[in-house]
């Protein structure tokens, strides 16, 4: 009966346990109820608990940001309904993804250009990293001189600028944030000669001495994008992965599966972190043409890779025959020699269970972002996107590789 219960009798621990179970926004709003609740519903340990219970019952991500290469902007797309409970009270999916608060002089509507191809548009904002609910974003000032980097929480709209270095222009910014080990984050970036600079939010400054990798260690770097996993930054080299264990200055190779080592032409086409695990997709050119591949997952002790999912995108080839690109000399012939399959895996979202059941693969084909459900092999269209600068669907359209995409899951962590 209303008015008769005795919340005051419950111990702090249990009140906190109750509040941590609330959807994230409700948990934050509980601070308005009384002083005791405010004290209980603040602080890193509480936020950690609240985020752990918010993600326990669903997939490891709620949606993803996509850096549209043709309009310098990051669009946000929630996963389709049914794929994630995030659409319920917990995921202010649309609002969380509105990054217009980063641009003080723009109203939210102005930040989304008209006819923006769906999603929430964030003009002049480029996401460069996403980690446990925090984003590292880049905003170019006008007139364009240097880029400005910020770490923000799109849900709470908190922003912290990352200061520039005095003498050196950095690039390849990546964010490292593991709330389970520390409330502080680090930003890792390359200097002009691929020295590695590390910024710590604890000291709010860049480390005094950059890490100078033995030059050849980073030879073959395929993308400036790194994945933060297990306390380390992981970059892709063509046929290998290299990681920097933060806190140490060591760059080490991650051992590759033995059968891949011997394969000629094998490339790493995707790495990502989901549910605390590192996933990798790789194939040779011939293997890719079949549209069947494995998603491998690394054990956290780095002992071995195991197969997490088997993916068969053969259906996508049937639905969209135009993604099979013939060689130039056979394109007019009846019997075309297929040379390339325009599919890129862009995001692996692990299921919530131990075995990763109910996982999701986001992939792109020219002009479309699609999803593949591991459970029932269902292929769905998430969003149409521009695939060439003019918006025409010519035969030579661009692909959207994995490093344009950033899985995101809301959290309450502070920047």
């Amino acid at each position, binding site marked *: 009966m209303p008015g008769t*219960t005795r919340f005051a009798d*419950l111990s702090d621990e249990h009140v906190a346990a109750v509040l941590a*179970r609330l959807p994230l926004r409700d948990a934050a709003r*509980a601070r*308005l109820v*009384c002083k005791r*609740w405010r004290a209980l519903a603040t602080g890193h340990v509480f936020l950690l*608990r609240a985020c752990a219970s918010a993600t*326990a*019952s669903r997939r490891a991500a709620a949606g993803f940001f996509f850096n549209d290469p043709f309009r310098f902007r990051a669009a946000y797309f929630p996963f389709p309904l049914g794929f994630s409970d995030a659409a319920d009270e917990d995921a202010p999916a649309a609002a969380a993804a509105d990054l217009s608060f980063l641009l003080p002089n723009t109203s939210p509507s102005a930040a989304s250009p008209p006819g923006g191809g769906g999603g929430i548009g964030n003009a002049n904002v480029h996401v460069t990293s996403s980690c446990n609910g925090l984003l590292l974003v880049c905003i170019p000032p006008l007139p364009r001189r240097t880029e400005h980097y910020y770490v923000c929480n799109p849900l709470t709209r908190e922003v912290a600028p990352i200061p520039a270095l005095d003498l050196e222009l950095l690039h390849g910014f990546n964010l490292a944030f593991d709330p389970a080990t520390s409330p502080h984050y680090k930003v890792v970036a390359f200097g002009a000669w691929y020295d590695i600079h590390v910024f710590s939010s604890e000291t709010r400054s860049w480390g005094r001495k950059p890490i100078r990798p033995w030059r050849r260690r980073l030879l073959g770097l395929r993308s400036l994008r790194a994945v933060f996993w297990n306390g380390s930054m992981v970059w892709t080299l063509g046929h290998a992965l290299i990681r920097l264990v933060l806190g140490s200055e060591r760059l080490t190779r991650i051992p590759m599966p033995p059968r891949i080592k011997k394969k000629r032409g094998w490339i790493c086409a995707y790495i990502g972190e989901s549910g605390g695990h590192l996933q990798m997709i790789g194939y040779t050119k011939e293997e890719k043409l079949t549209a069947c591949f494995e998603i491998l997952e690394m054990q956290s002790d780095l002992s071995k890779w195991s197969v997490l999912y088997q993916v068969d995108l053969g259906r996508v080839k049937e639905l969209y025959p135009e993604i099979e690109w013939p060689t130039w000399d056979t394109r007019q012939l009846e019997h075309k020699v297929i040379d390339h399959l325009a599919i890129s895996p862009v995001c692996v979202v692990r299921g919530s269970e131990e075995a990763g059941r109910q996982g999701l693969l986001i992939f792109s084909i020219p002009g479309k972002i699609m999803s593949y459900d591991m459970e029932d092999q269902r292929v769905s269209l998430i969003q149409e996107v521009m695939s060439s600068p003019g918006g025409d669907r010519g035969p030579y359209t661009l692909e959207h590789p994995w490093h344009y995409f950033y899985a995101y899951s809301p959290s309450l962590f502070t920047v």
Partner: protein
Amino acid sequence: MEVDKGKGEAEETRKVAEADRDTVTLKSSDGKLFEVSKEAAARLSTVLAGMIAGGSIDDNGTDLKQIGSEALENVVDYCNKHANSIPSAALISSSISFNTAPFKEPEEWERKFVDRLSHDALFDLVEAANFLGMERLLDVTCHKISEMMKGKSPDQIREVFNIKNDYTKEELEEIRQELAWAFYDD
């Protein structure tokens, strides 16, 4: 049945038989007796597990002075229902650490179990579960209380749970400003 046989025999046999008994008797603060599956009690409650292992279980009803009969009835009911449901690995692992292990959603029967409780019974059950070290039951009851709060305004929450607003108007306004992001669709 084994108990009856055990009671008639010598002390030595009685002890063995007691260890074999598959229920334990619990006594509430107001003297009511409840039987609960020993296996379920030991699995779900760290306190009862300790008492069973330490041999401090009283055959004529182990005194639990801190727990009223209504709450104890619910505890026993929960244990017995739990014993009858298939114990999934998920449930057992989630009961290891209250603070860090991710919370597993209540199962259908657990939901029904807490849904039929009054507010008072629910809060009593939280206290009883806490006293007996029953992490899973704490999880389920706390989850239920949080469900009652979901989507409610601070005013509504204060009313439902009888909480006094100890903020000044200015303080309230200040926090509201900080939390503006959490109100954007209200």
